[in-house]
């Protein structure tokens, strides 16, 4: 698998993403600077890593969404290529219009870094095949603006089209919005594009991949990606 890791000024979790992509997915990773206008040829997967692109100034992800490289990322997604946006990457995908809705300030108005439980909503996408539907994962979050929201119609649409990827859950898998780390509507932690080739998520699976460091529930996402390309 060939993976392009987009780096904006202020991106700061690109090393974490790179480690997960190489260590777990066995991907060949090329870093792509924000001012580039093309992705490396035969890119399979584009990753927008976490961080504070452009210092989160103006609005999280708003400036990065208009960077040169984003036209190439959009074209890659239109061709059916895979795009994964984690944390700030998710915010950028929303700001770029590649995913619906928006991420606003956490309900408690504070940055939060802690382990949460995520329920896997479907296990038939290239991002989640290594998981079971309904499986509850331990994955950390680290964000100040991860409170997903959208207008009622959009929420109805993404819910009815099965586009919710992960929800914040209790250990038994029950969803309780007030339990989540940020107040996201319906406990939404990650969503897919209409064709399920673009995934944006707030939590950081890339930080839970090595037994020497801690829990490893994040591996499944990268294993899924890896097998998606082995199969193809």
């Amino acid at each position, binding site marked *: 698998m060939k993976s392009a890791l987009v780096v904006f*000024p*202020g991106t*700061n*979790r690109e*090393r*974490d993403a790179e*480690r*997960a992509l190489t260590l777990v997915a066995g991907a060949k990773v090329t870093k792509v600077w924000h001012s580039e206008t093309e992705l490396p040829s035969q890119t399979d997967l584009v990753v927008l890593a*976490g*961080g*504070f692109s*452009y*210092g*989160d*100034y103006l609005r999280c992800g708003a400036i990065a969404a208009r960077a040169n490289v984003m036209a190439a990322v959009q074209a890659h997604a239109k061709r059916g290529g895979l795009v994964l946006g984690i944390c700030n990457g998710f915010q950028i995908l929303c700001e770029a219009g590649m995913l619906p809705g928006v991420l606003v300030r956490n309900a*408690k108005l*504070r*940055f*939060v*870094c*802690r382990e949460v439980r995520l329920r896997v909503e479907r296990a038939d996408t290239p991002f989640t095949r290594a998981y079971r539907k309904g499986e509850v994962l331990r994955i*950390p979050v*680290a964000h*100040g603006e991860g409170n997903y929201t959208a207008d009622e119609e959009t929420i109805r649409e993404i819910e009815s089209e099965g586009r919710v990827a992960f929800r914040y859950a209790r250990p038994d898998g029950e969803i309780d919005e007030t339990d989540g780390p940020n107040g996201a509507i319906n406990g939404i932690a990650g969503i897919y594009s209409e064709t399920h080739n673009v995934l944006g998520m707030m939590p*950081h699976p*890339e*930080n839970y*991949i*090595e037994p*020497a*460091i*801690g829990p490893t529930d994040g591996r499944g996402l990268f294993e899924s990606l890896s097998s998606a390309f082995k199969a193809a």
Partner: protein
Amino acid sequence: MNLIPNTPRITPELVAEHGLKPDEYQRFIALIGREPSLTELGIVSAMWNEHCSYKSSKVWLRTLPTTGPRVIQGPGENAGVVDIGDGLAAVFKMESHNHPSFIEPYQGAATGVGGILRDVFTMGARPIAALNALRFGNCHHPRTRHLLAGVVAGIGGYGNSFGVPTVGGSVGFHSRYNGNILVNAMAVGLARTDEIFYAAASGVGRAIVYLGSKTGRDGIHGATMASAEFGADAEEKRPTVQVGDPFAEKLLLEACLEIMKAGCVVSIQDMGAAGLTSSAVEMGAKGGLGIELDLDAVPCRETGMTAYEMMLSESQERMLMVLAPGKEAEAEAIFRKWGLDFAIIGHTTDTLRFVVKHKGLVEADLPIKDLGDQAPEYYRPHTDPQPRPVIAAKDVPDTVSLADALEQLVMSPDLCSKRWIWEQYDHLILGNTVQKPGGDAAVIRVEDGPKALALTTDVTPRYCEADPFEGGKQAVAEAWRNLTAVGATPIAVTDNLNFGNPERPEIMGQFVGCVKGIGAACEALDFPVVSGNVSLYNETNGKAILPTPTIGGVGLIEDLAKSMTLAFKAAGEAIYVVGKTEGWLGASAYLFTVCDREEGAPPPVDLVAEKRNGDFVRSLIHQELVTAVHDVSDGGLLVALAEMAMAGNMGASLDRPHGIPAHAFWFGEDQARYVIVAAHGQGPELVRRAEAAGVPLMKIGKTGGDRLALPGERSIFVETLRDRNETWLPIYMGASA
């Protein structure tokens, strides 16, 4: 070139406003042989203030042990550098941002973090961890909540955006910090031992380059503010607090590491306190060279800035660098790529003069050595504090049951869980956090392992107040113990010495006592001081803080698989205490929290026992004979056991002590102690080894169940303890748990 302009006239009032004493000003006149220009007065005030010159502390700092087989760079550079093997070095330092944080907590704390990160990456190291030590006023003081919320948000706001995990620290409350909070920030970076960069300039006629953000009018006289007490006018000093931009700092980090890799850098110095003045003087003075600056080339954020303002601005995220010959174009291209300013603003000379030109005028022409490493220093009068009497256990009434006292302690402001704070810090970024906040020390994997660094910050101010010498020893010993408890070999220390006004002999006495104690402990424990910072004048209206010499300790773990945590792991395992328990209640958390008494001599620190017991515990960890280890400190044995139970979600049944009153046994704060849990069946082996090593070892109970079962007392459920421990701070801060 025109001569130095001499308006306005330098009056005694102007001199006093710059914080210079009349005798210091006379010394300056004698040095330069004429009346200074206003810019020169500003420069000397910036260099000779306490914050930059260490004039009151230097004679004592020189007594600290600063060398050792692992030490590559001791104090005097941007940060200390210690060899950790395999061609790698740990680069670290701690620094205070107390005065600004009291005035404007968010920006004060944020720029404190920014400054210390810059110190570390200036040396060519990529920051891998940040820690802090915070002290606030009494929790009932009307400003405490506001200051705590602001400081925590500021630390998180800067570190999270910059992209360094904030992994540890300490937080305490006491009314003596009501008017002067403490914000001590520590950063740790990783570099290759053969790619370390220093501040000392070398080579005559080399270009001096300004890097980073533009210069504005913020922070002018910040260092002077940090060299004086607060009066009733503290609020008016708000304009002297700088504003941080972590985004710019992140870009500066990446750009600096890139130009270093490209071989463009001869020497480099960050612009911290006293900005351009101090960075330029330090580069020249350390390198034995003169520096000539042309301020017309300085990138400015505002129009019409004077030489005086440019020289004293403390605008953040700026660096000064001596460029390798012929590397101008390459270095500039790298900086432009990152969208940062890059300007050649001067050159090195062989005159040993610090010359500043602006708009065709010489604004300053001063001898550089006298500003820098030959600045004045004082041997200030100091008096030893009255020794406090030793309090016997029988003189402390045990009217509160053990269970009630334990509940009070685990929910006290000092000992409660600080989760509300550290969850606002990204402690996981970079993917190397093996032990997050909440344990004895943070453990951060080095590159891809198996090595790791253990990191901690410690000090017990109430001990230092009661006996500065023993308190200084204890701060070092506790840091050493915390590193040992996770299985690390302690290797070096950074210190951040926070005190009141050194012109008062009793405050200077506290300082001298603590430094002597730190020196004695560092010597005995092979734990050299490689960097540090002194913050004096932490006083408001004549009331000083508790003496607070924060120790930042760094330890090395050779193999992560052999590190240790404090959580109980399995039921039915025997629990032991290592070290002698005598029931010392003087100056204890029990006496303070449960009895509302602040008195008595603190527990003495036996450094020989400290070393012997610690080495014993570390060897048990490395040989996998124990399953949990925790240092015994505030609150004594029972608080340590409660913390182990909460971390492991498992209780313990405890034995009845003999010969010592129960409250003194369980809450006494005798030093050099650890609670350890024997791996199943290894109890006899532990006893045998302890005897052979001459280490006191006593069995005090065994793990298991869902409660702490106290002998002859009501039991406490672990769940109840956790509830008490976790909810105090969120409720206090007005948030739901």
